[in-house]
């Protein structure tokens, strides 16, 4: 086997911020005082926060050392299923940091904010085209926020037709955020079982769909990495009973330029700009979760909406049926700038090619590893594939043990124990930005680990060993929570 990327080197220790510093130090150049001190109301006056005082060097070393304890896309392959950890282009960072964007106040008069309004208007248009829907809002700040917006749209639309209804169908393969978002809008989730092929059947939906059910929340491609091939028939069943079809577009990276979501019968769909459109995940946000809709739901989208009039862009509140607002201003503009920059850099051919290569990479991993790991659904996959630990369990080695060992080989673990329908799931999404060499090394590493599982399971139980910390005691953390210093 080729040398793996995972190794050890000199890794620094670093205390907590308040274990460093001395009163009187500072890392801040206080702006010049050009006015006199004024009286302060003594009854309202406080003592100010108890923060440590540090020098600039203290601060810089602290965060450089901390950064070195992280695994990131820029350090190596991060095949986290359903999260689309693709490379985050550096030009996008340049664009979003331009002072004209970064320093812009959100309530600037419209004639003085044409650039960002135009960007939003065009990005809405591009996302509408890429999904094959009719209109888009950029306001939701994250994927789950987009789901909530989608459910609020369901509510507003159905209420306008008479009654908002009380139930919603959610497949057993859905992300946990789906039922949580629905329940915020008062919808009770009814689970729909996927069939023996790992997809929804028209019959299963037909049995549950009724006139008190608002509709269905599907993920397509689904979390098993499979295309929901019966989606049109499912949508027909839901529409026939007056319901709506929501699509969680978390996996849109598989189908750009390949599938037109509007034609599948989808009424509302959210995107994750931090997945499909390459903005970085930031250690858990900020993301952006635009929502695309079909024509008849457009009047209900959040306000303000960007409109174009005589070549000028403006923000309009004049949508009387709007569901309201989900963000104080217009959403995560900084993330939108990156996505816009990505779409313009890729063009129509580049986006389609990205989806094709994302699927090729996943299919290649699936075919190379299916002799080694149990593959519960041996069908053509989209951008990710799901294995399980069934073949390793007899050696008392679990999914968790194997992925912890993968860290020692220099890879971030895949998503594990999800989707829930596959016990011991290992969900691998390589994305299109990994090269054949890196994927080959990943495959070799996975095979080596499977061999270790048989020959030396203790090695896996003790993994990881090359990381900054060994396995952490999560039970103790939850039993006696220590949430601050």
């Amino acid at each position, binding site marked *: 086997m080729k040398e793996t990327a995972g190794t050890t080197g000199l890794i620094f220790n670093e205390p*907590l911020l308040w274990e460093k510093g001395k009163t*009187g130090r*500072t*890392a*801040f150049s*206080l*702006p010049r005082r050009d*006015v006199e*001190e004024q009286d302060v109301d003594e009854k309202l006056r*406080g003592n100010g926060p*108890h*923060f440590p005082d540090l020098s*600039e060097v203290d601060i810089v070393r602290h*965060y450089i050392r901390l*950064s070195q304890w*992280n*695994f990131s896309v820029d350090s190596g392959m991060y095949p986290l299923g359903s999260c689309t*950890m693709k*490379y*985050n282009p550096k*030009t996008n960072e340049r664009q979003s940091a*331009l002072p*004209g964007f970064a*320093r812009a*106040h959100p309530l*600037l008069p419209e004639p*003085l904010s044409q650039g960002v309004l*135009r960007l939003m208007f065009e990005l809405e248009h591009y996302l509408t*085209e890429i999904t094959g829907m009719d209109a888009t809002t950029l306001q939701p700040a994250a994927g*789950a926020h987009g789901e909530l917006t989608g459910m609020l749209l369901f509510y507003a639309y159905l209420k306008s037709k008479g009654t908002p209804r009380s139930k919603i169908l959610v497949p057993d393969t859905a992300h946990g*955020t789906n039922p949580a978002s629905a329940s915020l809008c008062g919808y009770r989730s009814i689970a729909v079982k996927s069939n023996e092929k790992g997809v929804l059947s028209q019959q299963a939906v037909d049995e549950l769909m009724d006139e008190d059910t608002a509709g269905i929340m599907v993920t397509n491609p689904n979390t098993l990495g499979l*295309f929901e091939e019966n989606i*049109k028939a499912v949508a027909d069943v839901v529409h026939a009973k007056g319901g709506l079809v929501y699509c969680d577009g978390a996996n849109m990276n598989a189908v750009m330029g390949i599938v037109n979501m509007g034609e599948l019968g989808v009424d509302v769909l959210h995107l994750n700009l931090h997945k499909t459109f390459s903005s970085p995940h930031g*250690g*858990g*946000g*900020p993301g952006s979760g635009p929502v695309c809709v079909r024509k008849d739901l457009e009047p209900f989208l959040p306000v303000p909406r960007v409109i174009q009039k005589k070549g000028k862009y403006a923000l309009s509140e004049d949508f009387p049926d709007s569901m*309201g*607002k*989900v*963000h*104080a201003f*217009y959403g995560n503009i900084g993330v939108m*700038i990156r996505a816009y*920059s990505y779409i313009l850099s*890729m063009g129509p051919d*580049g986006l389609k090619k990205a989806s094709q290569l994302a*699927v090729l990479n996943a*299919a290649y991993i699936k*075919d190379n590893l299916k002799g080694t790991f149990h593959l519960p659904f041996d069908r053509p996959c989209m951008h990710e594939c799901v294995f399980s630990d069934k073949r390793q369990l007899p050696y008392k080695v679990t999914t968790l043990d194997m*992925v912890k060992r993968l860290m020692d080989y220099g890879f971030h673990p895949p998503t594990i124990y*999800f989707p829930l329908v596959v016990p011991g799931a290992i969900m691998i999404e390589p994305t299109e930005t990994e090269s054949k060499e890196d994927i080959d090394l990943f495959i070799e590493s996975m095979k080596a680990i499977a061999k270790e599982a048989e020959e030396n399971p203790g090695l896996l139980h003790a993994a990881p060993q090359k990381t900054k*910390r*060994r396995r*952490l*005691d999560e039970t103790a*953390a*939850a039993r006696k*929570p220590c*949430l601050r210093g």
Partner: protein
Amino acid sequence: MRYLPHTPEDIAAMLKTVGIDSLEGLFAHIPEDCRRKEALNIPDHLTEWELNDHMDTLAGSMAVSPDYKVFMGAGSYEHHVPAAVSFLLGRSEFVTAYTPYQPEVSQGTLQAIYEYQTLTSRLLGMEVANASQYDGASSLAEAMLMAIRISRKKAVAVSRALHPLYRRVLETYFEPTDLEIRELPYLGDGTTDLSPLQDMEDLGGVAVQSPNFLGCMEDVERIKQVLQNKKALLVVCFSEPLAYGLYKNPGECGADIACGEGQSLGIPRTFGGPALGMFASKMKYVRNMPGRLVGQTVDLEGNRGHVLTLSTREQHIRREKATSNICTNHSLCALAAVMYMATLGGTGFKELARLNYDKSEYLKSALSDAGFKLPFSRPTFNEFVVEFPAGFKKTYQRLLKKKMIAGLPLGDFYPELNNHYLMCVTETITKADMDALVQEIKK
């Protein structure tokens, strides 16, 4: 394409392994009538240099400092961000990592967020803070839902002096529920009228903002007294947390939940987002809290480390019974905020807060001396309301041409405050800028 590493030979070899003869063939299993017929109708790709030109043009059309003097806050503040903070925040290891689900390879993010939770708790005077949320508005909505969960009541009261856009988001979140929002008017001095509270026994929560949207400091301690012996939780909201470098923080005034916007702490304004939803409460309510939490623990060799914890509250385990649907936080914004707080230190934070106050007071006096009315008498921090004579709209437009944005016209938010403007002065505005503004207005 420079982000796609596959050579034609790589593609051919990989297709051979999977037994498919073309890239199109990878999608053959998708039913024919589900496949897209036409190519995407979006512009052809740009080179890196063409893109730079295009984006420079868009960004160049925006009115921003130092070219423009923007005397506008209203939930989005311009503060100096030290170079060290921007530099450190750009580290790939922070920027291009995901949520720290695998703690052994995420200790950097985890320790940084634990430190953020700690400094946020200290700043707000609260016992526990979460790992952050989207923005001030959604934090308020989540806080009111949390107050409802704890009190098991069906109504909340919210001050009319709380950010109008936050209140609209709250209304949107409450729309599909059977929960009621009651508005508390504001008084002539710019603070919330508490008298309606006397007769409201069925409230689950009462929310005020301090400093409020009109810039005024609320008498939060008095609100706490009014709520004594009532079930309602006291929710203190904010949009400018730098104020707590000068004034008492929500915890000192008895808040049960403190929530608001943290953009002011080292995060560029970027037309309103990404921002930082800050969220903190008393420890006894932690299991009802929305959002991620990082906790301290040890690894199997006994070394200190950090993990995501109390996740049984969350959607990936509790699904529809979760405390919230929030999946990720605004981690990178929280990191910016903790870096910024650490850079200032306790001493610097207080000094900077004082400077903002003094500068704002200077403009207040200058406008008052010039004969303009300051309608609200309560102490303010770095924002205040001024009433200009009818017809000031014309002057406002003239000032725009001089590249001065003379505050936020309040008429759109409060019809009763026509001709009133919300002015903001931070440390980025000089005395000379303020003098020039007053000179121009007087013309």
